[in-house]
């Protein structure tokens, strides 16, 4: 009999715990509902690095008193999500590392036009051609390499040389990384489709076993000595150095030859969603991003207020980066425009045909 009693108690305890958990959950749910009912709280869907977005939001909240809640996810997943949410999207703003997600939503008519005054802060070639999003910051592609595996003198200087069989087993690529599509598109513009497919096949063979999901992984695997070199945006190396400390960074970076199709600029931008019920407040956030104060947060490396470890090049209001990089004005990228890049779908089609996607 004592058995049954003990069991009875245990089951009662389990049931009670479950009920308590349900109660707690309900409480959490209602608390969340209350805070969002407060009104002037904006929701920012962000594909930008968390620390960069958080530091910008903190400064914006302090300046305007408008609260901003951040939902961080992969920017492309967020673009799909916003498209699925359609006119019922609970988000007000979308902030990305690259332009294709923004171009995709603009094409679907889901973005509001950006205020002309805000657009004017950023050089027009880095804004949406249609005016539905504003360019905030930029990065450039560089070779990241591990000198203990490959000497600087042995590195390719042209992106076409990446497919040379002599680099077999030394190369890492991230074909699904959004930053890779501009390079593929630039290559296509420079050399044509047949040459691009042949080049991609060479990359696939050279990078077998080192095809990674993103630039972070390339940077860290190169640094650990798992693979010799790869192409990434310059800020991954700076971020890695800030994160793990300069003494642990074995990898180095270098530019490709000027105006080579592998030498491109990627733009980070932001937009207000058409579904937002707080259009005016949301526009204020865009204006803040390209203001001198917002741009300086991007430019000043550090973790304190008014700083970030963004390591991107600020684009607007004449602010320049304080990070020890090649100045933005001295970069010599391949001339491919944001409109030519579009949603990146042409690059995706090529990557699919080459069996890399």
């Amino acid at each position, binding site marked *: 009999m004592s058995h*049954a009693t003990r069991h009875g108690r245990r089951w009662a305890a389990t049931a009670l715990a479950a009920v308590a958990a349900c109660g707690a959950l309900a409480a959490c749910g209602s608390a*969340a509902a209350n805070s969002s009912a407060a009104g002037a709280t904006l929701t920012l869907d962000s594909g930008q*690095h968390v*620390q960069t977005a958080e530091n910008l939001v903190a400064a914006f909240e302090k300046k305007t008193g408008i609260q901003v809640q951040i939902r961080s996810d992969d920017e492309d997943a967020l673009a799909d999500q916003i498209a699925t949410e359609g006119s019922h999207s609970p988000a007000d703003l979308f902030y990305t590392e690259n332009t294709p997600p923004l171009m995709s939503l603009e094409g679907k008519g889901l973005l509001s036009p950006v205020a002309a005054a805000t657009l004017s802060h950023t050089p027009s070639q880095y804004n949406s051609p249609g005016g539905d999003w504003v360019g905030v910051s930029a990065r450039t592609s560089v070779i990241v390499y591990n000198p203990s595996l490959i000497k600087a003198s042995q590195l390719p200087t042209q992106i076409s040389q990446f497919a040379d069989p002599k680099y077999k087993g030394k190369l890492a690529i991230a074909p699904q990384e*959004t930053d890779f599509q501009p390079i593929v598109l630039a290559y296509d513009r420079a050399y044509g489709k047949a040459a691009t497919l042949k080049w991609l096949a060479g990359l696939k063979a050279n990078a077998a076993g080192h095809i990674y999901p993103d630039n972070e992984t390339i940077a860290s695997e190169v640094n650990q000595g798992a693979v010799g070199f790869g192409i990434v945006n310059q800020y991954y190396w700076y971020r890695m150095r800030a994160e793990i400390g300069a003494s642990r960074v074995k990898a180095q970076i270098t530019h490709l030859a000027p105006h080579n199709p592998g030498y491109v600029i990627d733009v980070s931008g932001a937009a207000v969603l058409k579904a937002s019920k707080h259009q005016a407040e949301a526009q204020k956030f865009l204006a803040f991003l390209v203001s001198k104060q917002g741009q300086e947060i991007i430019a000043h490396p550090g973790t304190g207020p008014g700083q970030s470890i963004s390591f991107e090049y600020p684009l607007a209001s004449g602010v320049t980066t304080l990070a020890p990089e090649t100045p933005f004005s001295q970069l010599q990228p391949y001339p491919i425009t944001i409109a030519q890049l579009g949603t990146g779908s042409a690059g995706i089609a090529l990557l699919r045909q080459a069996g890399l996607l």
Partner: protein
Amino acid sequence: MTSPGLLEAAPPRPGRPAPGGRAVAPRRARRPAGLIAVSAGVAVLLALPLVFLLIETSGAGLHQVIALIARPLTAELLWNTVKLTVAVTAGCAVLGTGAAWLVERTDLPGRRIWAVLIVVPLAIPDFVVSFGWASLWTWVHGFRGAVLVMTLAVYPLVYLPVAASLRSADPVQEEVARSLGTSRLRTFFRITVGQARGAILGGSLLVALVLLAEYGAFELLGYQTFTTEIFTEFNLSFSVTAACALSLVLVGLSLLVLGGEGLARGRGRVARMGAGAQRVSPPLRLGKATWPALAAVTVLVAAALGVPVYSSVYWVFEGGIPSVTAGSVSMIDALAHTAGYGAVAGVLDTLAALPVAMLAIRHTGRARHFLERSTYLVLAMPGAVIGFALAYFTEQYLNGAGYQTAPLLVICYAIMFFPLALVGVKAAVARAPASLDEVARSLGQGKTATLRRVTLRLAGPGLAASFCLVFLSVVTELTATLLLIPTGVQTLATQFWQYETDGSYAQAAPFAIAMILIAAVPSYVLGRFFDRSAHAR
């Protein structure tokens, strides 16, 4: 307690037409309308993601779907996915069964502690396991790395049901076999494995389906499968159509897995004859084999638990400058939400699995069988697909109501992990056959007393295992969570992911450790709650 002698008459005699079924027990001949209705409701809810896939792909048109599926990469992905699934499932079946037998049936020193440590790896996110290994040894990548990491991450899916099954299996058969002169090894393979066969197959089925949907670990290991490609599609094309088309291939693969498991399972009957006071059966003495056995378990725990914990702790102390300073939620907050979501989803799933399991075990019929099997499909669908399905349905039919709220997120978890609960609950219901209820009722026990003293006692370990499996899976879920979590809330997994993708390993690591600790709680409860010695006294 009921006397075993009385029950001897109950078992069916094979070879005679319709013996143990409808003819003997007329109660079961009735159509269980209530059970069917409730189960059908559950099945419909679980079919939502599939419906979403069909809506999305049909919108694209057959031509485009075929073009998406018939491209150069597909064959490569298919082969990668199949060989990985076979290798890891086999590895998990061996590791899980071996470990369960050592812990449940032998005098292995420190069994209670091992029982906890062996389960905990299930709650370490696969991306943490792969990060742990890959950051220590560069050879851990590609197929080799994927097999190693995934086997270590998911073998508890076999261990848990097998351990629960061995714990409540009748030891008499083993003793009879031994007393008749059968060797230990033969007894193990013929009796022990035989008794646990359903649990082993059930666990292996889960492993295979979970592998089909796995994403995080392979991302880091540079191994491409169908699911990594589905995520790539979600991420690249700004149209969920391609991802949905590929997901349908995944559904096809999981149908094959389900069919294979059904064939392997055949028709077995595992019910024991008495709830009884659990008889104290002396554990098998390992003798000289004690040290090798200890060494084997130690290596397993060191690899599955030690490596990820070590790398997490390493990063706490060795990480660089703290980078994220502003508004992130606190550890306590993330912990509370994770535990709350996991507990509610665990209870929901265990309750929802009961009618489906009862229908599957206690009744026969093709339609009912199909209904039960159909619920497994959802496990092979990537979390993001299920998340998008719910986002789609709330947007289309509810004007976005409920979207990104705690209840919808919990429902999403419950849908995703229902099959995990079903395996445990089915094992539980199989242990408590209806005939025992009838005997208990005929002996004058009331309905609730029967439930409490017979059904729940026999079913207990399986139900607890179900709850824990769901709870542990919720703790590590990431992709659907990112989509559906209420704005401003973080779980341990989302917060870990945010720091980790930002390269802030020092700040990510404590969240990994918290996930491991929170997983230790149900694992410990599981180990202790139904410990044999607690019953014996």
